[in-house]
Each structure stands twice: as structure tokens, then as C-alpha cells.
């Protein structure tokens, strides 16, 4: 079962929820930090990272001796990452998505591919025995999506019963990539107008990908009732409410997970995990 924890923006407590859920699942879980531009789940899970792999984009390289400047590659590239200008064929690495179309379609076999390293994958076990892995996008590299894709494909040590994928903040391509193939989207929000605005965006993505979703309201009590009303209206179950509590905020600021600071929340997260499992199973039974 693959659960994505997402939120429209940063700072809603998404990682707190994802790591807490992972910790109650223990050894049956693999947790992936898909926020490859600013991964921070490891801060709360303390894994021993002992696996590492470089990943990147297969960039085309043109053999000038074979290229006839026919223009086929430029025609097929929807990203304009390869261009034929007069007697020169240029590749723009910053635009290339590594899709391989140009290589396949070059009639002269003039294009080969080489890996342009844009990030690394790192993985290891936590003290609780749960498997953790994250992707790190190299500074200055524009494309997060290929790293997320590779991270999700990285073979686990053992097949986990539960995958928990901590999505990047926002509602753009990296979030869509993280959600792809998930069985459930757990959406973390705050009961404020901003929270609601961002929630609507991720709900839109989940709906488009036909992924069942549920909501966690974090810092419950700080805002208004609009998130509740929206969820009721949309038939989105609110699966957990975490009240605004000073001790939690202080613990997180010191790099301690929610469950370390407030072990009394453990049953609530166990229930949350069970509720998600029930919903996914019900979905498949339909």
C-alpha cells in the first residue's frame, strides 16, 4: 500500500505527519522523502544512511561526424532542448528531460546518451528498523521530477507492506510525480484561508489522478471552520486533528519527532494508519 503525504504549501506539518505515520508502522514501512529540493524527514527519523546512488538525466550527445543536420531530432523534441542551426546541432542540457526520443529517431544513429548526474539517492534503516530513502537534487539543477521518479523506483531491501511517500510542498510537477501510482493521498492542512486555498489545489491533483484522499487538520483551533465545511462539501474525510500545542512546536524546533515529544499521540497515528488501510482496502473491494 502506497500512501502519499502532501500539502499545498510548506510548513503545515506534512513531514511531521509523514514521519509519525512511518514510525507507528515500524518495520513494515518504507518511508521516502520525495522533497528532493529540501529533504528534512531524516532529521526526525535519524536513519543510518549506508546506501548511495547517483542519478540523473540521460543527455544526448551528437556525433558531429555522423550528423547530417537533417533536423529530425529538433522536430521530435517537445522541449526544444536540441536544435539544428545551419551546420550545427546543439543540445541544451538545462532544457532536456532525457526522454530519449531524439536518440531513437535519429536516422543516422548519430546520437548517444551519457548520464548527466543531477542528484543522489541515499537510503538506510532507522533505529526502529524502518527503511528510509531520500533523493537530493544537486544545487542549481532545475529538474526535481527525474530524481523523484528514480527514488520511487529504487529497489527496497525487502518488500515493504506500507510505503509512505513524503511529497514536496506545492502543487506543481514534483507533487504530481510523487502522487503517481499512490493508493491514498493524505493531505495535511491548517484551518486557515491559506490552508484551504492550498488544500483545494492538491485535492484537484489527487482527483485528477483518481487517488482517494483524506485530510489531517494540523494546528486545529487556530483558524476558522472553512476547511471543515469544504471537506464536508467535497466528501473528504477528516482523519485526524492535531491541536495547536506549544510543546509539539518546541519539540519539532529541536529536531525531535512528534512522537518523541508527545508519545500520547501514538494511538492516534495507529488509528490513522488503520483508517487509511481500511479505506484503501474498501476501495479495492469495490
Amino acid at each position, binding site marked *: 500500500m502506497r500512501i502519499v503525504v502532501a500539502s499545498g504549501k510548506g510548513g503545515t506539518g506534512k513531514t511531521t505527519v509523514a514521519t509519525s505515520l512511518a514510525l507507528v508502522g515500524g518495520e513494515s514501512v518504507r518511508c521516502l522523502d520525495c522533497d528532493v529540493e529540501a529533504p528534512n524527514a531524516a532529521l526526525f527519523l535519524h536513519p543510518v544512511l549506508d546506501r548511495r546512488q547517483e542519478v540523473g538525466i540521460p543527455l544526448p550527445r551528437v556525433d558531429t561526424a555522423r550528423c547530417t543536420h537533417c533536423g529530425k531530432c529538433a522536430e521530435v523534441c517537445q*522541449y526544444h532542448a536540441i*536544435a*539544428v*542551426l545551419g551546420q*550545427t546541432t*546543439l543540445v*541544451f542540457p*538545462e532544457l532536456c528531460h532525457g526522454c530519449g526520443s531524439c536518440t531513437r529517431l535519429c536516422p543516422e544513429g548519430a546520437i548517444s546518451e551519457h548520464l548527466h548526474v543531477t542528484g543522489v539517492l541515499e537510503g538506510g534503516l532507522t533505529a526502529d528498523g524502518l527503511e528510509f530513502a531520500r533523493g537530493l537534487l544537486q544545487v542549481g539543477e532545475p529538474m526535481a521530477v527525474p530524481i523523484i521518479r528514480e527514488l520511487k523506483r529504487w529497489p527496497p531491501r525487502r518488500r515493504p507492506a506500507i510505503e509512505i511517500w513524503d511529497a514536496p510542498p506545492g502543487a506543481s510537477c514534483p507533487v504530481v510525480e510523487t502522487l503517481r501510482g499512490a493508493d491514498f493521498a493524505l493531505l495535511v492542512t491548517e484551518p486557515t484561508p491559506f490552508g484551504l486555498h492550498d488544500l483545494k489545489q492538491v485535492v484537484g491533483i489527487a482527483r485528477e489522478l483518481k487517488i482517494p484522499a483524506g485530510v489531517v487538520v494540523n494546528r486545529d483551533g487556530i483558524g476558522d471552520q472553512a476547511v471543515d465545511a469544504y471537506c464536508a462539501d467535497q466528501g473528504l474525510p477528516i482523519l485526524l486533528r492535531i491541536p495547536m500545542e506549544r510543546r509539539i512546536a518546541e519539540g519539532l524546533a529541536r529536531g525531535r519527532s512528534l512522537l518523541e515529544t508527545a508519545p500520547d499521540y501514538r494511538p492516534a497515528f495507529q488509528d490513522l494508519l488503520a483508517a487509511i488501510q481500511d479505506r484503501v482496502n474498501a476501495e479495492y473491494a469495490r
Partner: protein
Amino acid sequence: MKLVISIAGDSLQSPFDARFGRAAAFCLVDSDTGSWTAHANPALEAAGGAGVQAAQCVAGLGAQAVVSGAYGPKAYASLSAAGIAMHLAPGNAPRTGADVLAQFKAGELSQAQAATQDGRH
């Protein structure tokens, strides 16, 4: 010689458009005879790589030189590879493609020696 001027309309009398990759159209002018044709910029809707696409369009028109207000790094690299001279008509003063053509003919325009704006992905 065949010259391309970036314009915000569909004729030589249209306003000059200073953005190369994002110009509405390109006016191809024969600087000797004054005859011209207008061509929509295919890169206008491009999410990324507008400079490359616009440069390919200009190269495809058979131009030897281009006049615009600024060139991003990818447009610069592409136009250089195609051997197309890049001229700069600086400033924001409102003027038409024909005005810019006159400036070009009078030798008032300098050539870009490097990309003159940051490209955006």
C-alpha cells in the same frame, strides 16, 4: 541582406518588440529592396526553450541578421551557431519596425557580443 526584426504585430509598421524569444512576430525584411513578410513567433506559447525555438524559426527564414532588444543565453548560443548576426536596438522608446530598419541601415545599431538577459527555464 535578409534581416529579421522582432515586432509586436503583423507588419513592418507594427511596434518594435524588444524581447526576442517572446516577441509576437518576426518581420523578415530585404534591406536592399525594402520588401517584407511577417511570421508569427512559434515560441510564443512555449513553456521553456522559447529562445531556442525562436532562433530556429529565424534561421529557417534564411535571415543573416536579426534586430531585437535582448537575447537570452540559449537564443544567443543558437543564433551564433546559425551564423546570424545579432543587433541591439536598446531602450524602451516606442517605435515601429520601419523605424528600427532605418536605424539599422544608418549603422546606428551595435551587435550583441554576449547574451544580454538571463534566460528563464
